[in-house]
């Protein structure tokens, strides 16, 4: 009884948060055209964040909740992206998109099929666009899920890292097939498919002017819906079976869980949502191109999941937005050279020295504490290394202060990604449980409530 009440409360809170988020996104995009024009980088981050968070959560369902270590996510996203793109390119522009292959083999687009029923302009046009895109998204997921089922038949019997490498292989095979010239009339070969409805197609226009921007609202809506379904699934008896498989396959089997069936189910559902995420990514990028969906993309999503905490949905979502914001926006400045004047140079030198000293002190303290706990012998070696590194950095700082150079060193194109990957390595090595571990945001509140109850 108690449990039921709480979960109802949780569902209500979740709905409320989702609604607030959606309203907030619409307001943000429309209310401040001066301060935050719709072309602001914030909206790019929000859109990409929404798309990637769905991809990350779908990977987390597999890796974090079922314990199947799969690296095929980019392949399923590719399937979704292409399905969506192929089904929604308007017939009018198909010939220009597929000009290398003398037109497309598929002669319809979903929104126009609906347009024939509801009318293609005004409210009818909007309805048929929404229905067409919705159907295309669902089909994108279904195609990905179907291929996941096919792939799952042979590979799901494999254990941990073999499974990882097999799914990675499948993603690469898919990428090769979609670039095959012989399939050109359908997939446009190695060229991109474009001109299909993207997020900005949902902006409500009147008389050539946009009245209401909904281009950020749409990915948010789809992502929130999908993530909500995943959460419901995880809290259902299927979800409990998945977690049981993650904890101990043999014990789960002994408790009467059909391993093959549940693994396949988890794999297909994860692929379904990855397919939807892929379709959304195609909408975000304005094109679908097989070249983009490499294993590097899977790694990116996997690293997001790890940063957020394997087995935490809210962790994945938060980590996605942090990751996207850092890589697209906050760390951008690292890619451009900075020329200082004498004042800012002094400030930089002082700040740098301070940071180095503080960091070194922190690490030394941490090491001493750890050494005391484990009584390990090589703490002196590590401490010496830290002190040496810190003094080298300080020496460089002094040299830089004296030298007449005004340009900040190292800052040029590509430095952002180096810093970024170092940060990721630090997270992987020292904060192994990620931001949230396997807890959810709601767990944090719950614990507080419990503490209050004890008082």
């Amino acid at each position, binding site marked *: 009884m108690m449990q039921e009440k709480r979960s109802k409360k949780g569902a209500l809170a979740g709905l409320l948060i989702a609604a607030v988020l959606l309203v907030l996104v619409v307001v943000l995009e429309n209310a401040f055209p001066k301060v935050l024009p719709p072309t602001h980088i914030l909206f790019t981050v929000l859109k990409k964040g929404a798309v990637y968070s769905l991809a990350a959560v779908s990977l987390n369902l597999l890796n974090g909740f079922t314990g199947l270590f799969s690296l095929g996510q980019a392949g399923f996203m590719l399937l979704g992206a292409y399905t969506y793109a192929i089904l929604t390119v308007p017939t009018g522009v198909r010939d220009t998109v597929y000009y290398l292959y003398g037109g497309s083999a598929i002669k319809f687009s979903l929104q126009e099929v609906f347009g024939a029923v509801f009318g293609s302009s005004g409210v009818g046009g909007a309805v048929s666009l929404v229905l067409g895109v919705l159907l295309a998204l669902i089909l994108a997921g279904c195609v990905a899920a179907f291929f996941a089922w096919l792939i799952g038949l042979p590979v799901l019997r494999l254990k941990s890292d073999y499974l990882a490498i097999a799914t990675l292989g499948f993603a690469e095979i898919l990428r090769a097939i979609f670039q095959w010239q012989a399939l050109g009339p359908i997939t446009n070969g190695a060229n991109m498919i474009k001109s299909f409805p993207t997020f900005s197609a949902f902006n409500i226009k009147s008389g050539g002017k946009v009245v209401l921007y909904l281009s950020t609202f749409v990915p948010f809506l789809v992502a929130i819906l999908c993530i909500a379904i995943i959460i419901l699934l995880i809290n259902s008896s299927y979800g409990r079976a998945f977690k049981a498989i993650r904890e101990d396959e043999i014990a789960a089997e002994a408790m009467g869980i059909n391993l093959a069936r549940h693994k396949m189910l988890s794999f297909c559902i994860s692929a379904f949502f990855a397919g939807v995420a892929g379709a959304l990514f195609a909408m975000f990028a304005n094109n679908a191109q097989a070249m983009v969906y490499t294993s590097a993309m899977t790694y990116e999503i996997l*690293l997001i999941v790890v940063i957020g905490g*394997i087995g935490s949905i809210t962790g994945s979502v938060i980590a996605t937005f942090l990751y996207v914001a850092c890589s697209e926006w906050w760390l951008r400045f690292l890619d451009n050279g900075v020329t200082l004047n004498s004042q800012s140079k002094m400030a930089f030198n002082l700040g740098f020295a301070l940071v180095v000293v503080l960091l070194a002190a922190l690490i030394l303290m941490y090491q001493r504490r750890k050494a005391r706990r484990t009584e390990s012998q090589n703490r002196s070696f590590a401490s010496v290394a830290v002190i040496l590194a810190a003094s080298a950095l300080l020496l460089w700082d002094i040299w830089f202060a004296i030298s007449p150079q005004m340009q900040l060193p190292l800052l040029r194109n590509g430095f952002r990604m180096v810093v970024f990957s170092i940060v990721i390595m630090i997270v992987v090595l020292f904060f192994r449980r990620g931001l949230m571990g396997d807890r959810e945001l709601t767990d944090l509140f719950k614990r507080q409530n419990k503490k209050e109850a004890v008082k």
Partner: protein
Amino acid sequence: MEFAISILLSGISVGGQYALIAIGYTLVYGILRLINFAHGGVFMVAGLMLIYLSASLPLYVALPLVLVLTVVLGFLIERVAYKPLRTAPRMSVMISAIGVSYLLQNTATYVTGGQPMNYPTLPFLSESIPIAGTLTKWVTIITPFLVLVLVVALTQLINHTKTGMAMRAVAKDFETSQLMGIKINNVISMTFIVGSFLAAVGSMLYFTNYPYITPTAGAMPGLKAFVAAVFGGIGSIPGAVIGAFLIGICENIVKALPFDGATTFVDAFTFALLIIILAVKPTGLFGEKATDKV
């Protein structure tokens, strides 16, 4: 006929180069049960280092220096990224390996500015000779012999030295060998040193066939070498070598097949092979059958 010979020759050559990388994978997997995703990155970095070093140093200094630096890189990667995770679940270590390969790739992009870098022509290796009517680079001829020599040396090291014995013991049982007084950290470091050394040699041979290196150049040969290691039975050195040669030859045959778009499918073919092997005989050609204990 001439065509067939040239395909076979380049297949053997590429296979030999994969073999040198595959040994690194197979050694590390045998001991740590870790797919070292960073290995392809190390391979690529070795190529880049040769480019930068040969620009300022004569080749007879640059080549050995590249070998030494690559070994140091492999050693450092193990110490910094894998050693702290020794007690962590295997998945964490694998993620750490992915992180390292991401870091290596991004650093390479930063240093090169994302531009393809011209690989220096190595004297002798890059020169061509006519064999059976086709011009062939010396590197194609040399590779299989060099691989053979290195593999024989390696098996000697593993079968007849104390370090090799320790390596075999650690591969068999991690904890028991620790109890027997084997310093496993040294053994693991040694494994990475050997693996990186072979990857450096492999990169010199491999990139001689290509005009330039990009920061992602290591990923594909790395993955293929891993497939080779799985094919031969992961953990087995002769298996890795034979698997690599087979994959190299098959790949070149696929590339030459007379149907439209065969080159697109070279990579896909390797992975299809991987999946077939995993589905039919997961232990590979020479792998030991491991039974899971409950």
